[in-house]
């Protein structure tokens, strides 16, 4: 990824991500999040992560975010009039956030920055490469994910079902 591509993706990403948390209307926030996810997908493409990019759009932007939007609509939550009241927290959070980003910046700058990466193996980032890893070394996590999802399902049902 060259500098032009990087910046032309990074800057919109930051702006859009910022809009997620800044826009008063939850629906818009969610939509901005979807946008962020899209941009990220594009970003992933440039990083040779084709499969991930696809999943990002299908699963994340497609499935998960729809769920979010659905709940927002369901609860019909409007922007909260008291949104801006807690000034102390806001100031503290802003300072904390600024410190965090500054620290991350300073620390990550020091990270080893070999721009010339190791040569990519054949088929890097493809479905084949992905699934090969997934069913060999990552077999156990893959199976564990099933338990995780089972828990999530049971949990969601227990909590959300009106009358059990």
């Amino acid at each position, binding site marked *: 990824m060259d500098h032009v591509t990087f910046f032309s993706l990074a800057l919109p990403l930051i702006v859009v991500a910022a809009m997620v948390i800044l826009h008063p209307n939850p629906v818009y926030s969610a939509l901005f999040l979807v946008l962020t996810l899209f941009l990220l997908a594009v970003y992933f493409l440039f990083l040779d992560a084709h499969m991930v990019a696809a999943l990002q759009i299908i699963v994340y932007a497609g499935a998960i975010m729809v769920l979010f939007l659905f709940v927002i609509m369901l609860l019909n939550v409007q922007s909260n009039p008291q949104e801006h009241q*807690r000034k102390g927290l806001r100031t*503290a*959070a802003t300072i*904390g956030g600024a*410190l965090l980003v500054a620290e991350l910046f300073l620390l990550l700058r020091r990270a080893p920055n070999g721009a010339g990466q190791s040569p990519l193996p054949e088929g890097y980032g493809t479905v084949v490469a992905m699934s090969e890893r997934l069913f060999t070394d990552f077999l156990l996590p893959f199976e564990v994910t099933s338990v995780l999802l089972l828990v999530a399902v049971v949990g969601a049902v227990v909590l959300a079902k009106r009358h059990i």
Partner: protein
Amino acid sequence: MEHAHAIVPTVVHTVSYLRFIVLFPLLGVLFNIFLGQRLGRKAVNYVAPGVVLLSFLFSFVAFLRLPQDGALVDTVWPWITSGSFHVDFALRVDPLSAMMSLVVTGVGFLIHVYSTGYMAHDEDVARYFAYLNLFTAAMLLLVLGENLLILFVGWEGVGLCSYLLIGFWYTDDEKASAGKKAFIVNRIGDAGFLLGLFLLFWSLGAKGVWTLSFSEIQAHASALSVETVTAICLLLFVGATGKSAQIPLYVWLPDAMAGPTPVSALIHAATMVTAGVYMIARLHFLYSMSTTALAVVAIVGAATALFAATIAVVQTDIKKVLAYSTVSQLGYMFLGLGVGAYTASVFHLMTHAFFKALLFLGAGSVIHGMSDEQDIRKMGGLKNKMPTTYGTFLVACLAIAGFPGLSGFFSKDLILEEAFVSEHGSWLLWLVGTVGAGMTAFYMFRLLFVTFWGETRASPEVAHHIHESPVSMTCPLVVLAVLSLVGGYFTLLHFLSPIFGEPHEPHVPFLIRYDTTLASLIGIGLAYQMYVRDPDMAERFGRQFSGLHQLLANKYYVDELYDAVIVRPVVAASNWLWQVWDTLVIDGTVNGAAQTMDASGLLLRLWQTGNVQNYALSFLIGAVAILGYYLW
């Protein structure tokens, strides 16, 4: 290597019957405690004096068997051994202690007998005799103790009995207080005594002599430096001022008159109060080493003699007069000790035991006859109603006044002479002593005249009841009167020479030779003038010198002074320590620590606002801090 072993002057003969001298009174104590109440007054009246008589007999046996230049020692059991410290429970009879034990048991027996009459109407007689027997035992332990610690045991023991007996009529708060005061003032002295004992022990220990035994101390005393000896002697003397009622610790003795009169006679006149004199005599070899210590003893003694005499002049309570007189006479003994006239001093101790016991018993007889009245202003004219008492009292007064030929004369004269001529004496000491002697004669005869002569001033009911005391009381009076008469002829000088060395014949100037006689005659004459020939004169004087009179009548306000300077500040300080320092400061700090914790808890609790975003914020702060650590 200048350490020299002094020759131990006495040959020790080990015997095992001395313990019985102490044991009999102790058995009497047990009898009185456990059986006295049950077996009744009669049994008590026989047993209590009986055991003392047995002690007297054993003392007498010991006295008779006393070898020419030796001592009898009875080691009963090893008492305390701790490291290099070793003390036996041992008793010793040598001329000094033999004389003392005879006086104690002899006078003690008489007073026990007297008490059976005096206490005839008291329901608690068993307890009384238990105390009295215990006192006898403790006193015997004191005089017979083979070492300084056993002496101290007796020393404390007699203090205890004094406490118990002064407060014998405990329902009277004042009497109980007097007992307490006696014990506490004595304890102050004892503290000094203990320190002296420690210093002596360790100083000798540093020379390789680990002992408190008198003979051993005597043998090695010369190894000690003069400074050390001075310190030891002065500390021990503090103890003596407490026990023997010298300035500044004499204050308890007048109050001690709250006890039954026989007790005053035995403890606060004849025996216990002389313990300090005995102790110094016992350790005379130490005192002789230190001019300073002797000087202090002499000055305190002389000062006390005069000081107490001045107070006695204006007292109106018959027992108080006698009490101050005792303090004064004890002053003479210390004066004697201080000028190195140990024999004279001990001699005076003995004669004083006779006549002062007699005086107290006489006073007791008077009080008994006057239905417990003690104020001499309400007496008068008793000489006809109580002839025996009067006669014996007169003998005693003459003896104490130093009337020539009676016991007091010899001993007092000896002391005054020595005060003048001894290398440790001075004309000033002599002068003070002589003036004091004159005053003694004056106040004693004032007492005699006011009490026994003239018209009775008692209320009719009391006057009606005035009677001579029973035989059990008058008999001891007579015996003591005889002793007061002839006591001066007991040749103690020679008897005690194994202890104090051969007496030397002092060269005494002409005037000094008759000082005692003169002083006593002047004193008696003055009293006669003031209280018999011109009874108003005393009152006139009193009015003319009302300030002085007040001062004397109030005993120089010493009690008040002590109260203001010591007692009150200490109590106030204690209260302050308790309520402010202990409760507020220390406990406040402790509780404050707990409260700080609690407050911190309340403060930290504010962290838990219940708001999930605040929690996230604290979370973020933590993360930022940790990242900051790595950045830094």
